[in-house]
């Protein structure tokens, strides 16, 4: 095996796992595979997860309709007006990639892109986002093609437990679009709203340094510059 075999999840393994899932492995091997296979979980994630139906949640007598675009798909939801954007994503749409770390806008784990800007989705009520375009971690990759920031996070080990990672990555995508990546100290400063308790910070800086030099794919909506 050569060094290149140890680069980001070798295609051979990816293919192997996909074959397993595609070839009905879930049927023939079901008694032996107890955990969900990474391949299955990846397919679900790549598909945007929204097809997984959650049981209907009662919206209550004061429910409000809100229409917003999430990862390119228009969604109309009937929501209790107290539901945060984060809880709408996690508890109503089964988009659990955005994380709840503090629910008070203090940790950044819930960072998503709204109309191109990074925001703490726990700090804003879903119903205030009428007509907005929201991109979550689930919306960054194009199918099995990772966004350059995602690939760089894998290559530089920009995470350990992975819980802050979706927020870090959304924040990093915006940080690059904002142009706040001229040098390490600037990256550190502009990424300091996203806590990582495992202490992956030096690796996150390395990942952003690598990704910033690569062409950034157009997201469902172009990120606007914030200075």
């Amino acid at each position, binding site marked *: *095996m050569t060094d290149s075999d140890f680069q980001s999840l070798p295609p051979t393994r990816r293919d192997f796992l996909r074959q397993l899932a595609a070839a009905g492995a879930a049927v023939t091997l079901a008694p*032996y595979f107890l955990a969900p296979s990474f391949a299955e979980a990846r397919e679900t994630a790549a598909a945007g997860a929204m097809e997984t139906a959650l049981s209907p949640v009662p919206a209550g007598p004061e429910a409000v309709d809100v229409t917003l675009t999430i990862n390119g798909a228009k969604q109309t939801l009937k929501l*209790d007006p107290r539901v945060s954007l984060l809880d709408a994503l996690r508890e109503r749409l089964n988009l659990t990639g955005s994380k709840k770390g503090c629910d008070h806008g203090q940790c950044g784990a819930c960072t998503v892109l709204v109309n191109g800007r990074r925001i703490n989705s726990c700090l804003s009520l879903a119903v205030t986002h009428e007509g907005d375009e929201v991109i979550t971690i689930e919306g960054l990759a194009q199918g099995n093609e990772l966004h350059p920031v995602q690939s760089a996070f894998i290559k530089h080990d920009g*995470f*350990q*437990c992975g*819980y802050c990672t979706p927020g870090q*990555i959304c924040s990093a995508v915006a940080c690059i679009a904002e142009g706040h990546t001229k040098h390490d100290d600037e990256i550190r400063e502009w990424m300091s709203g996203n806590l990582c308790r495992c*202490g992956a910070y030096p690796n996150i800086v390395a990942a952003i340094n690598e990704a910033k030099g690569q062409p950034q794919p157009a997201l469902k909506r172009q990120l606007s510059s914030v200075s």
Partner: protein
Amino acid sequence: MNTPSIGQPLDRIDGWLKVTGGARYSAEIPVSGVVHGVLIRSTIANGRVAAMDIAAAEKLPGVLAVLTPFNAPRLPDKPGGVNDPRGGRRISVLQNDRVFYYNQPIGVALAETFERAVHAAELVNVRYDEQPPLVDLLSNESRAYAPRPPISRDRPVDQSRGDAASALADAAARVETTYFEPVENHNPMEPHATTAVWETPERLTVYDATQGIHNTRHRLANIFGLPPDHVRVICYFLGGGFGSKGPVWEHTALAALCAQKLGRPVKIALSRQGMFNNTGFRPELYQRIAFGADADGRLVAQRHECLQHNSMIDEFVESASVVTRMLYQCPHNYSSHRLVRLNIGTPSYMRAPGEASGTFALEGGMDELAYELKIDPVEFRLRNHADTDPSENDKPWSSKHLKECYQLGAEKFGWAKHNPHPRSMRTADGRWLVGYGMATASYPTRRSPSSAVARLLADGTALVQAGTQDLGTGTYTIMTQIAADALGLPVWKIRFELGDTLFPETPGSGGSQTAASTGSAVFNACTALKQRLVELAVNDLRSPLHGKSPGDVNVVNGRIQLVDFSVNGGSEPRQDNWIGETFADVVQRTGQPFVEVKADFKPANGEKFSMHSFGAQFCEVHVDSDLGRIRVARWTGVFAPGKILNAKTARSQLIGGIIYGIGMALLEETVYDKRDGRIVNPNLAEYHVPVNADVPQMEIAFVEEEDPHINPIGVKGIGEIGITGVCAALANAVFHATGKRVRELPITLDKLLG
């Protein structure tokens, strides 16, 4: 031969899922019809709940119930049950009205949605019979008691060798002082969460954010009076733990209790505020030390006495003096631990419990003594190097490369270049004082019995399972690498599964023991599976290898082949006689879907050797000469922790440990209001953990170490050694920069001014 995958910087196997949001943590597993539970918490620290008015809460639409100590179902009072102190952490699950600490769970609001449950919890009106709480440690020191032994798994509470008191009196140089640290909270990014589902009235499944699925299983089985195999615990991904997710806390048992009562699945995810006082913390700790040395710089005596607080209901000892017993050669040594019960939550293990705090006092004291003796701090440590373990009757080390760590660290860091005089160095612009500091790192090699199962499937791939956890430490990845090498397969043909109690039992992921213990079990299972397959081949008439000796074959890339070991030591297959067959051939001939071997790992050699990791931490700090602001400028850490399984994830873990230590040293403090026992800063805005801007680039290096005694894979574990020595290295650097010895954590600018 296969190129070994062990040691290679393989990207994380679960990386793709983590960067795409596809990794499902415990609160994120979709469960049909789940009810949201929100805990109601005490606003007093001592007394009783006199009454709870739940009428308004219960009237809210969508609210299903509000459980309180007055209406909650009673749990069976059995051995190991919720009231048995031997069962695990003493937890308050609405079985009585007593309040022992602020923020204690006293009720659960249950509703169809999270928003309604929060609203309902806020509508509950609580009346208390309040008693004045005991909160302050020092003013209650007269109530101190000696904890029950052992501490730190198998160590005595107090230990004495020689006569420390007389030796100290005669010492040529002496340091006698106190080091202090406040309460620190783990604050993993993922809040604790449990979803409980009763599959039948007798069978319980829980999705739990836990560092020990089997521990949760046994605890819940005991609490609910079920056979252990009627409880299934699942945790595929864990968003950090650092010790806090080791024990079973209130919310886990309460989720199961509420689900039982409602006959529906219940999810309780803690709020960040709810994690303070309820999920463990590093206790407030005074370390009183007295170290003495002779004129040649050799330690003659060390005294290390620890005083900490503890809760009213349980016991946890921060075994801070244990490291002082073993780290240096010193003939006279006395150490002790005393606890004071206060109205606080129960403290618990937090990353390197004992060693993280103990090395703060020990390595700070060593620096003070080095300065007293005018000896370079590295040289002073070399002079007192322990060639055998003084705390265990000079038992030999299984391996130790501490001297090499000092040497390599000093070289890489440029230690020799610094002027040792305090306040002697500044940045080029003259504004910042520059300080260099160093300290020794040390952590025990922990091992526990573990087990794993390995199966070779008919398609030639392997499925390996162990009921362990991945906290972010990289368990998925390193187990895959161990299995690949042991089986002679490439990593992409291995599927490793964890996080389900249906898999073989393993210990909790704590004490840096998962790689050493469960890694060894995976190695044993895969090694035995390979042997089994070889035996099946050579004993089968239909095999081209029939009749050959198992000693005459090796396995390359899943193919068993005849090897002439007389040529190149057997490292090359015999090209002229290419006889062999694949694992898949062997399995398919059995007519079974797979060939399986389950194996155990049992720790050995513990009586013969003392087993520890060692390392050396070097850092540079810049201190604003006007304002006292402290910046960490750079860090070099060199470690000898046995075999490195994955160069990439290992480096990450050590960096992570050091950063956790930077937080402990410079930022973190949970503030209790001494009047009423409330926590002043239970949130991430006011409890400061390091952010990206607090952390410089870091240099990590390893001293290669082969240790044949610890386990079959030579692994010591690296989750915790990174944090040890960090607080002292920083405090020592701040002293070198400023001339001020700050012995009270966190080292904040106010302690440098005036």
